[in-house]
């Protein structure tokens, strides 16, 4: 009997929570009229925002994966003093609010020695479209690094050792053996990174300014149109973001199954 109650409680909690989640998402989708969604989705502002979100996110994902593969591999294959500290530092941005990360990056890229050097070579990061990419990379990288680190940790170093004993140098063993074996995990990391980049709000808002039709990504479109009182546009950008996240999660789940197998 006790077991039954325990199982029923677990099931109940799960059903109630996931039920509310689905209910909230469905109510957002059903709130505006279909014609409103279509009109908003095809407006110049929305098309600009979708295009900008996709192009910056794809570029950011490429950069994030370069970082994640390098750092994840380093953490998984080498032990060195400060190993634990490095993991903590890399994980840290996951725990603090995006606005805080945005402020930190604003000061790094817009104020002080590094910013002055960038300006002297003609690079203005703050308020530009590059600021979106920088914000996305710093927001998404910790998640990707985690996944890639876990993936490399799950691949026995023996494969590389065998490859090296047969004549490969370390780089070739990494490139020809470990990297292909990590394929599923790397794709999963890229999908998670892409979802984080698309949804990145606070960091982008602070660093890129959130200027309409210039540094306006989808979450910024949602935010700006709430400020304007334009609910149809706000809800449509929300729906598009949900659709993109849903797609990303489905792809992630499929790839993740591959990794497990």
């Amino acid at each position, binding site marked *: 009997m006790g077991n039954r109650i325990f199982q029923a409680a677990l099931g109940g909690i799960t059903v109630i929570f996931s039920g509310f989640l689905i209910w909230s998402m469905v109510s957002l989708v059903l709130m505006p009229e279909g014609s409103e969604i279509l009109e908003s989705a095809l407006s110049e502002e929305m098309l600009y925002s979708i295009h900008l979100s996709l192009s910056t996110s794809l570029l950011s994902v490429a950069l994030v994966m370069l970082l994640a593969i390098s750092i994840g591999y380093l953490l998984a294959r080498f032990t060195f003093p400060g190993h634990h500290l490095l993991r903590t530092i890399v994980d840290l941005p996951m725990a603090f609010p995006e606005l805080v990360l945005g402020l930190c990056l604003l000061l790094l890229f817009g104020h002080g020695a590094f910013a002055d050097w960038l300006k002297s070579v003609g690079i203005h990061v703050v308020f530009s479209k590059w600021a979106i990419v920088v914000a996305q990379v710093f927001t998404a990288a910790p998640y990707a690094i985690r996944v890639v680190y876990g993936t490399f940790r799950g691949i026995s170093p023996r494969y590389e050792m065998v490859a090296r004993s047969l004549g490969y140098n370390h780089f070739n063993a990494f490139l020809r053996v470990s990297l292909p074996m990590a394929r599923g995990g790397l794709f999963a990391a890229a999908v998670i990174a892409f979802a984080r980049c698309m949804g990145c709000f606070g960091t982008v808002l602070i660093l890129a300014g959130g200027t*309409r039709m210039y540094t306006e990504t989808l979450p910024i479109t949602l935010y*700006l149109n709430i400020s304007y009182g334009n609910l149809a546009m706000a809800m449509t950008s929300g729906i598009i973001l949900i659709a993109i996240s849903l797609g990303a999660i489905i792809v992630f789940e499929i790839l993740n199954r591959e990794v497990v197998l």
Partner: protein
Amino acid sequence: MAVFLMLFASLGWAEEPLLVYCGAGLMKPMDELKAAYEEEFGTPVQMIYAGSGELFGMIATRKNGDVYIPGAAKYTQDALEKGHVVKEGMTDICYHVPIILTPKGNPGNIQCLEDLSREGLRIALADAKAAAIGKVSSQILEKNGLLEKVNPNVVTRPSTVNQLLIYTATEQVDAVIAWEDQATWAQGKGKVVIIPIETSKNIIKTIPAAAVSYSKRPEEARQFIAFITSPEAKECWKKWGFPVEKPE
């Protein structure tokens, strides 16, 4: 942020608080006045701070709340026309004066409104649709024939006044057009320089307060408005940089 405040407000903890929709730029004096009101009348007050337009949208869609205090009289006028606020008890609280704000040391050497059009400067202006100061700064520039000349220098159009202050204090831009009171905000102290705009070239706004028409306790709403326009309250407004007499 606003969403969470709304959540807490709708949970109805303890005594139902008086719900006040207030322009985000008025946070400092209003926080003080809210505390003073709660102490004097024993009624909890729930403040929702956001951009004036955003608040307008909240009142229009949620049809609740008791008091609306936006950053410019235009919003209460519009709300009156749409029936969101009532005329009775509607009043002006104080003035809101646009000024030019530069980082410490004024690196762009800006002395007057015309200087904003100088080539190579980095200027931030608030989004004209989202924030009252955004609309006003466009109007001021237009009135003085500077809009086209200043536009190429505008590097960003953030949607809140607080972003303007952060960007100025951290020297991301050479100048912004903001409200005078922002310079007296504690976090701005010593980090920013105020360059006044000549009154003849300026557009000075009044900050109004009105009772929301959906309020279930209109007497308390009017009592709150009377409280924040009392002589003691006027000292508080002045302290935070909101003149109660129209500037010359």
